[in-house]
């Protein structure tokens, strides 16, 4: 019996090893291979493992997610075991082990953004797209994600789109039109998250 019978605790971090699907055979394009080979030189020769996060980002850039086959490929590149790669992939939130939509909408849900309506933004996006956080629309266009603090709390509520697009101060009422705008115009619909003095 649980120490505290009313609450089922210790379920969140329960160790569950879910092997990623192997997927198609994976190799870097020659361009990505060249980038990786350069990045490895930033670290001492016996410390290739330091480049593992970069190696995985390159995988994700190339095929959108990290498959089992690509983990094996990265293990060969890094010269470590596939289990070590899996260990890293399963820890960091920015790696996806399943295909995601063209636009991953990462809504910051932590305090500063929540105080200014981030929960409502997620609800509105969810209603507009017809999916719950963590899911992808059937047409493969959008994945909705709730993420923890993105480090841009003065522009709350903040969204990160994929890992390179930002949209700041999205009012919940604008969430629907924002989705339409993003679908129509792509990244041109985003405000960015810069002190973009040069563009003003």
């Amino acid at each position, binding site marked *: 019996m649980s120490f*505290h019978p*009313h*609450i*089922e*605790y*210790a*379920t*969140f*971090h329960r160790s569950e090893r879910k092997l990623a699907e192997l997927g198609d055979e994976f190799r870097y394009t020659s361009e990505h291979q060249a980038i990786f080979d350069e990045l490895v030189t*930033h*670290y*001492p020769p016996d*410390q290739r*493992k*330091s*480049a*593992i*996060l*970069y190696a995985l*980002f390159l995988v994700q850039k190339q095929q959108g997610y990290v498959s089992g086959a690509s983990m094996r490929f990265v293990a060969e590149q*890094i010269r470590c075991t596939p289990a070590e790669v899996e*260990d*890293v992939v399963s*820890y*960091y*939130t*920015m*790696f996806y082990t399943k295909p995601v939509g063209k636009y991953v909408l990462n809504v910051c*849900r*932590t*305090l*500063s953004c*929540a*105080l*200014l*309506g981030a*929960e*409502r933004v*997620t*609800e509105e996006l969810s209603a507009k797209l017809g999916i*719950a*956080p963590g899911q992808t629309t059937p047409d493969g266009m959008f994945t909705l994600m*709730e*993420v*923890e*603090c*993105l*480090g*841009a*709390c*003065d522009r*709350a509520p903040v969204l990160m789109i994929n*890992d*390179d697009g930002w949209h700041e101060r999205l009012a919940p009422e604008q969430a629907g039109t924002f989705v339409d705008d993003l679908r129509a115009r792509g990244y041109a619909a985003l405000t*960015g*998250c*810069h*002190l973009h*003095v*040069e563009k003003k």
Partner: protein
Amino acid sequence: MAYEPVLTNHVREPNAFTLDFYLQKARGYEGLRKALTLKPNDIIEQVKASGLRGRGGAGFPTGLKWQFVLKDTPKPKYIACNADESEPGTFKDHVLMERNPHLLIEGCAIGCYAIGAKVAYIYIRGEFLHVQETLERAVAEAYRAGHLGKNIYGSGFDCDVFIHRGAGAYEAGEETALIESLEGKRAQPRLKPPFPAVEGVYNCPTAVNNVETLCNVPLIVLNGPEWFAGLGPEKNGGPKLFCISGHVKRPGTYEASMHTTLRDLVFGDQYAQGMKDGRAFKAIIPGGSSVPILLEKDLDTPASFDHIQKAGSLLGSAGLIVMDDTVCMVWLAMNLLHFYRHESCGKCTPCREGGDWLYKLLQRVERGEGQMKDIDLLFGVATNIVGKTLCAFGDAAATPVLTTLNHFRNEFEAHIHEGRCTLPAQWRAKGPMLAGAH
């Protein structure tokens, strides 16, 4: 006398991030030139005399940290710059790296020279790709102009700066977890000692410094330690960046001296300009989500490491989160515990299991299904996390619960008595989906 910004004075000017701008307008790389004419130990002494304290959260004197870096060893030494800015409410390094990247690069180079390192790694969080691009451009410019690389200014000093991208882990902001992540592993903390100054990156002596800390170093070398110390209260010298977010009219990053009071920062015209929508002030978290709450009565405290500590909280990373009277404190604790539960690296049991347990208890109270004994249980679980983990994360995760119980126990009791949330604000989720479904 009005305070003149020295770290962020040019950030809103066009092309402030370029090398040309930095050289012409900001005495760029003069600090490094001067540093290379001094002995490394003299620089450490200057930084010690300036009283510069780490800007990442702990406020540890930077000069001492550098002095502790093991000297008599054949191993290489490293600077690891902590640019993993992920403490909720903090976004100061974001501005510095995006608009004044050369100042950081210069700080890294001086730091390397001072401790005898040849390589600095800037560990930047994976979400800051747009910042990383600016930083990479700046590093490339610095190499081309001979401010980095081999035999800088003919002094015989070599220095490389590399940028290392993280991939989404709050815990990577802890210094030993950052080192683990830099080595290509899960970002989980190490047992200390040995401290990074003895065994850090690749088990070599390492100084781990925050972005803002390193940005202050060129200014100290250039203007002298007395100038730096004179900018703030005793032992709290230098410029400080304050990140103000939440229910204020003008959230943003503001540079001020640590003489400035919390009230000025929240209500002052040149800072956040007071509460949004004319609401009443309720509470402030003065140093990122990991520190205790302060109330209206504490607002006249100067925002310095020592003053805030005396008032019962911590300056931490100087992320000020301001809350108006629509904020339910049970909800606040629940929101933050969702964060800590998710970000716990899982290495130490009290934090991994306790965080989840606290979150579930808070959920139950927030939904109005709690019992009075849950309050004691919350207190008991939280106090059993504090001090029982390898890193400060455990204490940080327990803090939102302990501080809300301390100041707002009546709100917890009201939830339990009335069987519902007594302060359901308009800006919170309307449906059940986000009210703790996951």
